[in-house]
């Protein structure tokens, strides 16, 4: 039964306040339709309700709502989104409505966007990998199906370019169905166009986009990740697909959370963010995972642009406590024109150890990872030494490390926009390791050295462009 009101008592920011009619059993969280004086139809949601007061959060904002003439109708339902396999390759707004000019979706199911927490005993531990096509990512911090692995970036760093590259190139190595959901939160119009163009270059039939622009209502930013993840859950657990969800930018989400919390008059915690931000983030991130006995999986890559590059800021800090590792972008690399500027030493994937190796990637993967980390860490020490005492005074061994670091940054990290399979990433890695003496490769098993080490390798090979390109394709 839908009951309509025409009497608002206060309007503040995106919130409407009014007194309920006695005996109207308003549902917490239910949806309202609001018709303004001009006939404009807007959507709202009941935030809190008591006998004296109902607070309604209006998604499109309250601008232009008059106290006397606005008509408010309570629909007896909570927020749901229609989902369907037909959504593949389409673009939607923060309410789940198509914005690509195509036909509306005929929903197969209408789902509550808040979802339900997964029962911990039904969770399957994440296994098997996703190939992003980026050497440093795949080799050093491998993404595992069911994992949530954020990208920690900063303003002015090319995370959008990196994200577009991942969305276009990510795949599972088996023949199983795979889909990417791209969720843009508070994107600038220009960024949105950039992503749209990039995805279209690749055909974009395996991508579902949910776009909330910076100029769109704030409240939509809070809804859009939930809508994207509800769609992901439908595809993963009911349609047996592997779903990669990219959420960019969580910082905009957190800002929206703070803004709305502030309007509601809640007591702030750290840096003005609400005290429930940890639980709220967890409700997004913990929707990644796998379920025992189900074929599909949900993997998340949230992007966080750290305010002022500060990793201890509440947004990256809380994220780091919930997610399973992090990919950190480096401003230094970016200034040296290294792309993607993924800084290996502070990046980490907590779940890769159980999923890499023979069956999934290659038997020498773990050795390569560990040896590259060790060599690069040592090389940076040598570099520091070099800046004090000069290159001439370094030992030959240290000079090898310096050469290693130089080529590692230039040809392994700095891969540009090309796509590399696991196999070709490993081959590049072995050429780099072959710069070092065999005796330095203490973290690699003997049989792998025997199999992959290139004797008398000349680093100059890297610079001979044509030979190099052929090598990648092999």
């Amino acid at each position, binding site marked *: 039964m839908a009951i309509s009101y025409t009497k608002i008592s206060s309007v503040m920011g995106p919130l409407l306040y009014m007194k*309920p009619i006695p*005996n*109207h*059993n*308003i*549902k*917490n*969280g*239910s949806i309202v339709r609001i018709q303004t004086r001009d006939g404009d139809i807007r959507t709202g949601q009941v935030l*809190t*309700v*008591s*006998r004296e007061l109902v607070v309604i959060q209006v998604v499109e904002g309250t601008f232009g709502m008059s106290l006397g003439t606005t008509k408010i109708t309570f629909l007896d339902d*909570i927020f749901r989104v229609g989902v369907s396999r037909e959504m593949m390759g389409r673009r939607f707004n923060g309410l789940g409505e198509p914005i690509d000019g195509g036909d509306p979706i005929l929903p197969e199911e209408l789902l*509550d966007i*808040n*979802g*339900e*927490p*997964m*029962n*911990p*005993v*039904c*969770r*399957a*531990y*994440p296994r098997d990998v996703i190939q992003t096509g980026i050497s440093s990512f795949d080799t050093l911090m491998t993404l595992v199906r069911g*994992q949530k692995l954020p990208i920690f970036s900063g303003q002015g760093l090319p995370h959008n370019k990196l994200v577009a590259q991942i969305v276009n190139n990510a795949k599972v190595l088996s023949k199983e169905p795979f889909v990417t959901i791209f969720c843009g939160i508070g994107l600038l119009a220009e960024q949105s166009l950039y992503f749209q163009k990039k995805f279209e270059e690749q055909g974009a039939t395996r991508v579902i986009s949910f776009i909330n622009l910076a100029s769109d209502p704030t409240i939509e930013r809070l809804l859009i990740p939930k809508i994207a993840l509800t769609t992901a859950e439908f595809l993963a*657990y009911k349609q047996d697909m592997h779903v990669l969800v990219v959420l960019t930018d969580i910082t905009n989400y957190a800002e929206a959370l703070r803004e709305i919390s502030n309007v509601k008059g*809640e*007591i*702030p*915690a*750290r840096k003005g963010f*609400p*005290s*429930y931000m*940890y*639980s709220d983030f*967890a*409700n997004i991130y*913990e*929707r*990644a*995972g796998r*379920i*025992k006995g189900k074929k599909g999986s949900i993997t998340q890559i949230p992007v966080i642009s750290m305010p002022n590059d500060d*990793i*201890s800021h*509440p947004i990256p*800090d*809380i994220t*780091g*406590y*919930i997610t*399973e590792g992090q990919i950190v972008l480096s401003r230094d690399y970016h200034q040296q024109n290294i792309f993607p500027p993924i800084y290996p030493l502070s990046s*980490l994937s*907590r*779940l890769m150890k159980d999923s890499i190796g023979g069956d999934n990637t290659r038997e020498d993967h773990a050795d390569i990872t560990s040896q590259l980390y060790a060599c690069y860490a040592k090389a940076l020490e040598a570099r520091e030494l070099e800046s004090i005492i000069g290159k001439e005074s370094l030992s030959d061994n240290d000079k090898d490390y310096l050469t290693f670091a130089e080529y590692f940054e230039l040809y392994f990290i700095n891969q540009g926009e090309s796509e590399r399979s696991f196999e070709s990433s490993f081959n590049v890695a072995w050429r780099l390791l072959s710069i070092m003496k065999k005796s330095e490769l203490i973290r690699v098993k003997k049989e792998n050295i025997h199999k992959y080490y290139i004797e008398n390798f000349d680093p100059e090979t890297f610079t001979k462009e044509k030979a190099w390109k052929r090598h990648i394709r092999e």
Partner: protein
Amino acid sequence: MKSKFDSSADLGTVISINGSVLKVEGFQDQSVGDMVNIGEGLNIIGEIIKIVNMVAIVQCYEETFGLELNSKVENYHYPLSMELGPGLLRTIYDGIQRPLKTLSHLSGDFLSRGIRAPALDREKLWNFQPTVEIGDYVTEGDFVGFVKELSQKHQIIVPPGIKGKIKTINSGEMVVEDCAYTLQLEDDSIKEFTLITRWPIRNARPYKKRFLPNKPLITGTRVFDLLFPVAQGGVVAVPGGFGTGKTVVQHNLAKFADADIIVYIGCGERGNEMADLLNSFPNLMDPKNNLPLMDRTIMIANTSNMPVSAREASIFSGITMAEYWRDMGKNVLLLADSTSRWAEALRELSGRLEEMPTEGGYPAYLATRLSNFYERAGLVQVLGKFKRMGSITIVGSVSPPGGDFSEPITTNTKRFVKAFWALDAKLAYSRHYPAVNWLDSYSLYNEVAKYWDDEIQEGWQKSRTVVNTILSKADQLESIAKLIGTENLPPNQQLILYVSTVLKEGYLIQNSFNDNDRYSSPRKTMELIELFIQFYKSSLKLIKLGVPVFRFKQMVCLHKLRRARLDYHSKDISNISELELEMRQEFESLEEQYVELT
């Protein structure tokens, strides 16, 4: 908890909904702590946390989406309680003791709202064997009989506050709700008792007398057992930023610590991590008696996306179950990962109640609540006729934001704990696990020294002092060495620097993925350290004869000593005497060379 919503129930009406906090009016009777059932058909669980002008403020343990204004609320008139009895072991609960496996049969892979299941299996048969006879006089804490639960003898205890004469007693197979015995109370009334008792989670279960903890709890991790021991009945905090290995420390304690019962509370942590534990634990065996580890374990899994009120309750639920096992005279280890998530839940609920925040947004009663929890640990003489001792040891991890130990949870926790295992991001970064910082960590359980020296292995106290001296001296020397270079230090100081490196690599580091190294028995812990000390003392002696430090670095026995933790399993530690002999001979021959020279 059955919902009735009929004329016999005490019903109230919802007059306000704000997130998980409701206002309810119209109860005939109400008190703070009463459990309520909200909304016919929804069956949301809640608890009265305040009463203001006859209106009850209710905190819900589940989401309130879709709840209607003016819904009916039934007051159960009893506080949130744990069901205690046979069937707790091996079970995985959520924060308010709902068995998660049973729930998955009821509602599938996701936790739906309003589902209920009894905490203890109602159909399982237990063989109850009485140990008292009709006519015996029993009081609170006395054992009336037992059932065999997995490898444990599960004693059936007369509940606190009860005394009387055994009127009837049953034996043989029964389910938990069957009558096990009846008592004739002092007022001559007859009271029936089943295998289940209930206890409110916010109240500590009573005991007779408290004692100072004096017996070490062997953890199987060398750095804790030697340098920062915890006593049975003690309290430890494990703080560390993200990625420092708190959870691995907790998992290792759950696997190897020398306790009868383990209560593991996954409080607001990652679902995938919990899945890892839940999947791997059932296959693990206790290294001491080869029984499945799960057989001594009760788990609470309330991940970060499960309702926040249940997260707040989870650590109290856990400690109540721990106290129940303590009352049978057991040594219980309670692991809480992480108390910061619990405190955040408290902050979140406090925010919803619009209470005045203090530092970091936490409510002013944070310290009180923390002490309510930590003070329930201890070594006690439990209730009952016979003198029986039981203990609860708490190890709580703390996740300080940004790894900053000056934040309110870490500083407040420090007030209630006597041991502090500080995990260090720098050590973790250089793959030194467990990443325990030996300068910031401490343990005030010095009373265990006597027990170690008398009952386990002599020389614990001495070895500990030597190691502590080497480590702290080395730390001072390191800063000097950076300025003037190691080779410009006097030889004995060079030796200290070197030995401290060897100690860190060969002793303090412990690899939890290596079969020989992951568990270190007290014997191994001691034998190993004595060898390191022997190496240090023998070298020191030779330095006085003019032997340069590099000669020690080339010794064959040193190479073996550094690998000894990986080469010797705790079972074959007696073989280490061969290494000891080798070392002695090598030093003797070195000494001979130099004596001849001079």
